[in-house]
């Protein structure tokens, strides 16, 4: 199960190795070649010799997580967040640290020992610690180094058409590119860019695009859905189960009109249920790609996920299939009409 394998892997920004190795093994039999670049992006190429537009499909391998910033004399570990995490979600979670996946928990003072007033306020980051069971600093030093990265330990599970797990943003995009490369033959060169460091400032993907110089790029993402109690309908941004979300404009990019039209046409023709992403908050690698060199037409399609950037998010697998169908449909248009 590809999504399970990918989402349970560790891949906090700049430490995407486990994810990269899974992807390499998955795509190898189906692509012309793959390579890594200076940043650590993995690029898989299919149909390189074909004529027609050069297309980049981009998704990022990295996920938000934690970085160990101090080893206390007590053996407890202080940490900071890598990428955007609401600090209030951290307490009372299981984590794993570093390459050897040292298990730990994020603890807090028991409720019995708290003042009433304390409970009303969120626990600040500098009052949270990871406990790995080390009795003192010396013991901790044998297991953990400063700068080590940690993730949540959430397991993937599927209930009907819904899936829950961590790092859907953006392992679902990685999975979609992998499956497209496995299932499809293309009439034009397609570059699957599995990018690093999206969560810390859209750092990776555009560097790959700089070398590839594609005619167009499509970013496949997991995006936030807020179709939950407490949000008015006009604040949902996306709705789970209503199909893949097409971005018109976010804080990093305005989707290129030509691609946008093509996507809508493909959706209509193939009767693919879709929705617009109904906010312009948040940015993706497409923004950085679009500004490479003389400019690269770019677009973003995403699968709505509730509780994104937290230990457990939820998505609809029909939306995921819809995302793939939309890319396939658009590719059929590209094959016919060019770009």
């Amino acid at each position, binding site marked *: 199960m590809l999504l399970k394998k990918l989402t349970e892997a560790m891949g906090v920004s700049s430490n995407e190795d486990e994810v990269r190795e899974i992807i390499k093994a998955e795509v190898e039999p189906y692509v012309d070649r793959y390579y890594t670049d200076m940043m650590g992006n993995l690029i898989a190429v299919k149909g390189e010799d074909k004529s027609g537009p050069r297309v980049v499909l981009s998704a990022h391998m990295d996920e938000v997580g934690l970085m160990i910033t101090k080893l206390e004399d007590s053996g407890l570990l202080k940490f900071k967040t890598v990428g955007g995490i609401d600090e209030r979600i951290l307490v009372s979670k299981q984590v794993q640290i570093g390459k050897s996946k040292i298990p730990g928990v994020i603890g807090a003072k028991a409720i019995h020992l708290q003042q009433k007033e304390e409970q009303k306020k969120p626990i600040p980051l500098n009052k949270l610690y990871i406990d790995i069971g080390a009795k003192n600093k010396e013991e901790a030093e044998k297991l953990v180094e400063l700068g080590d990265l940690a993730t949540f330990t959430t397991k993937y599970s599927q209930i009907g058409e819904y899936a829950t797990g961590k790092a859907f943003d953006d392992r679902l995009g990685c999975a979609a590119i992998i499956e497209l490369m496995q299932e499809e033959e293309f009439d034009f060169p397609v570059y699957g860019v599995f990018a690093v460091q999206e969560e810390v400032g859209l750092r990776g993907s555009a560097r790959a695009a700089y070398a590839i110089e594609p005619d167009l790029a499509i970013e496949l993402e997991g995006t936030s859905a807020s179709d939950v109690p407490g949000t*008015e*309908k*006009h*604040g*949902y941004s996306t709705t789970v189960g209503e199909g893949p979300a097409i971005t*018109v*404009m976010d*804080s*990093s990019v*305005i989707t*290129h*009109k030509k691609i946008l039209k093509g996507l809508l046409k493909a959706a209509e023709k193939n009767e693919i249920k879709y929705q*617009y992403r*109904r*906010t*312009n*908050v948040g940015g993706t690698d497409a923004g950085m790609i*679009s*500004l490479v*060199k*003389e*400019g*690269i*037409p770019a677009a973003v399609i995403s699968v709505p996920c509730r509780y994104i950037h937290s230990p457990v998010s939820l998505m609809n697998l029909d939306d995921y299939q819809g995302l793939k169908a939309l890319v396939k449909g658009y590719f059929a248009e590209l094959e016919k009409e060019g770009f």
Partner: protein
Amino acid sequence: MKDLIEEITGIFGPSGSEEKVRTVINKKISNYVDGIETDKLGNLIAFKKGNGEGKKIMLAAHMDQIGLLITHIDENGFLRFTKIGGVNPKRLIGQRFILANGMTGTVGVEKVDEEKEIKFDKLYLDIGASSREEAEKHVSIGDSAIYKPQFDVSGNRVISSYLDNRLGCAVLIMVLEKLKKSPHDIYFVFTVQEEVGLRGAKTAAYQINPDLALAVDVTITGDTPEAHTMDVALGNGTAIKIKDQASITHPMIKELLILTAKKHGIKHQLEVLEHGGTDAGSIHLTRGGIPSGTISLPIRYVHTPSEMADLNDIKASIELILRVLGEEI
């Protein structure tokens, strides 16, 4: 001049939808230039050849304007929206907006107790539709809207929506009309997506790779009651930018502009802007660095539907650009 400003400020073209502006400008300048093209992001790049002995100069004015992006249509036909560029939600109530097809609407607000609660999620655009079905005949999610264009002349000043930065576009058009001879290869670039992150200028500058660049854009003033501490005043001439948040004018360009203005007795003022930026911000960091500066048009009430400019400042700006282009650099 006034006619041109009225015409060009009235065209629909928020960030990402600059097509109509591009078409109008293209028509107006094509006779004056040696080449003209639209690049991948939508920038209009016009080229005027020099005598082979000058420099390669890029002039940039952005075509796009701030506005609203429609994000939701409810059962009763009300539209919800978010902003495109720097729009202040507290100043929108009662303002009229138009869609690309000319449909007009006005902004209303949900019941709120205090003004500080007014954020985009409390506002809606009412286009007179009484149901979702009716509204959807005229608008769909992802469409954009702009302030309904208004243009007036008051004495020596114009009050208009979208002087930012159609006034810059108008200035470049008038420069092209008046420019007789220059030793330099000049690229007049009408850029896209400035209001959402100085984007178009970046890719255009990469393609052109000029020796130096000047952005032509508006700036705010400090000459109104209890204003910001700022020296720029309406009517005090063209403003030569020293610094804003996105760039520090290259010392060579700063000197070039000041000396040229002094030499030809062009009324000018120096500008230090604490916030904001212009296309020069992204141009000067392109490739290995491009010496850049900005010629600013002083404007009061920026990003409101009633921006005000002084006609003499506009003339001074045009003259400064013409004189700079005529100089050996």
